[in-house]
């Protein structure tokens, strides 16, 4: 049965590694739902968060293929229940709408969104949360005319410990 899995990869920060990792998905005809990369909690160690909808058997094999890459330190997969995750969205709306439609102010307030910037022409709202929350805000604002909308990939932290520092220490002492 297909399910949403969060793939977390700890790796060296090398040019071309993203290509190497994405080619593992490409080779197996698996679509990446979202992908974010950033520095991890450890200096010089990079972290990928990749969201895929696949079977557990398939994600297990993906993890092994990813870990097989020389520059990958470790890879893990988790279900939604095992992670804390968020996405960020930005909404650009015409400023006139804010003043003409009082309802917009209520929408912003109720959704706990932040106004990032306001100019005479447009204003930008930011909302961080679950997909359904950013989706709801999207649907609420759409009738007033969205000039632009963008949503980030999922960022996620696991409830369980990853133990990358220990793994790195162990690799060092092994070598």
């Amino acid at each position: 049965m297909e399910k949403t899995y969060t793939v977390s990869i700890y790796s060296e920060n090398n040019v071309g590694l993203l290509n190497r990792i994405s080619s593992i998905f490409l080779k197996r005809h698996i679509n990446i739902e979202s992908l974010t990369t950033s520095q991890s909690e450890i200096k010089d160690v990079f972290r990928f968060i990749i969201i895929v909808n696949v079977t557990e058997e398939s994600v297990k094999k993906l993890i092994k293929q990813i870990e097989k890459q020389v520059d990958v330190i470790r890879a893990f997969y988790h279900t939604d229940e095992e992670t804390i995750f968020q996405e960020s969205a930005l909404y650009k709306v015409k400023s006139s709408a804010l003043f003409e439609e009082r309802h917009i102010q209520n929408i912003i307030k109720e959704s706990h969104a932040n106004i990032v910037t306001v100019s005479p022409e447009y204003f930008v709202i930011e909302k961080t949360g679950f997909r359904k929350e950013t989706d709801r805000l999207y649907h609420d604002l759409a009738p007033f005319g969205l000039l632009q909308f963008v949503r980030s990939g999922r960022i996620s932290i696991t409830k369980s410990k990853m133990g990358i520092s220990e793994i790195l220490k162990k690799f060092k002492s092994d070598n």
Partner: protein
Amino acid sequence: MWQQPPRVVLPIFRTMKTKEQIALQELENESINISGAEAVIRCLLAEGVDLIYGYPGGAIMPVYDELYKFQDQLNHVLTRHEQGATHAAQGYARTSGKVGVAIATSGPGATNLVTGIADAQIDSTPMVCITGQVASKLLGSDAFQETDIIGISTPVTKWNYQITKASEIPEIFAKAFYIARSGRPGPVLIDITKDAQFDTFDFAYQKCKGVRSYNPIPVLDTNAVRQAAELINQAKKPFIVWGQGVILGEAEERFKAFVEKSGIPAAWTILGLSALPTSHPLNVGMVGMHGNYGPNLLTNECDLLIAIGMRFDDRVTGDLNSYAKQAKIIHFEIDPAEINKNVKADVPVLGDCKESLNALIPLVEKKSHKQWIGRFEELMKVEVKEVIDKDIHPKKGGLTMGEAIVSINKHTKGDAVIVTDVGQHQMVACRYADFVRSRSNVTSGGLGTMGFALPAAIGAKMGAPEREVVAVIGDGGYQMTIQELGTIFQTQAAVKIVVLNNEFLGMVRQWQQLFFDKRYASTEMVNPDFVAIAKGYHLEADRVEKREDLDAAVAKMIASDKPYFLEVCVEKEDNVFPMIPSGASVSDIRLK
């Protein structure tokens, strides 16, 4: 008028130790200010490389200029196409056990390497490929002969890296060789921009001892070994299938000890061939699509399948849903990604197989499975009657491929390195060739690269110069890299080339006959005069068409100490059997 060209002396004929030692000593003592290009050569020397294959061009010219200066220490073989350089490097790696090195220029030079790299990746062959690249300031400008070889080679390399600064060269080369040869070996590509070749820096070389994110050999789980031993000792009908892991792990002797102590019949995958002598009483033959009857049928009868250094390729397993379902599976494997990839293992034993077998042997009871082995013998009798007799002792019709292989066995005393291409001849050669020692079978197994054999044979001969190397090739694959006859002529590498000519792309034709109602779409070959072509390259060459002439022709070829070409004209529409139709179960193996 034609004149003998200056002969390229192979490094094996040289006494070059002292010079090399001097060079190394120089390096150990202090750093020296040299160009990136010279650093490349010194890195190769420091890694013990004395022979590389390649083809020059604009973006790699600084390195070639240094090759000229170092020609008394580092031999370069000019192949006639970059693909040939990779296959030659593979052949060299397969017979010598060392890392093969291929070098090419940017753009088309680099893309021509890709087939060989992909082949080395899927067959776990240690290889380092070096490509030139346009100057770093031109990267991304669509400069002349610029191509993104890092992007192109990523899915088919174990690791790759683009060097844009000369100072990166020593560390990256050290890492490249370490990665290529350690753990499950594979190809590594290093792309070097032209400015990095020209720039100078203070060079010092240090061998790579480890990479923090890379754990090549998993720690052996002694508990798993104990569980494996228990299953082995309890099994009534155990069956071993071994692969190239036994050879790559240099575990042949330990493997033989295990087989003999446990008394378990053992079959090989095409890449495992030659790790155990053909004549060994417990060697029951080949598994897979054109493997032997017994090993395939009994895969679905054994109660324990012990897989050692093999990866359950689809050509071995056929339909996975009906593959050894009745058996418990033990999987000895170095690559964690192979565990449970195709076949679920009841007991996976991760680790270097030499180490694993060493731990296993004392725990295994000495046994002989007479009755069970009798089943293999019975089925072998059936196969001999239905297939093998017709293949190797035909009473009528044209020459067969099997006869040619048997004749090669006879005249090499079964102790040649047999290099094969891909197709019917490959299956026939692997089925009927005799082997007495390891690293004697060089073939393109996983990728199935037609055109592999001729260049690979050049490398195989240079990797094992004291051995007889016979390349057995079909008329189709031969013409894919036929230009490497030029390399053979120039280096005088004493390769014996046997083309089994059936004037068809035989394996495809066989499928067309069996599964496409004999619609022979584009499989018939109208061939040139192969003997004339070989003679054009000033090689000794002969053609044999009649059964009564075969033995003498093969004898003459083997007796020659020079490169030699022999065309054997075989029956046009012979098929290779047994056969497991694609996607069928190993139990559905057909004898005709």
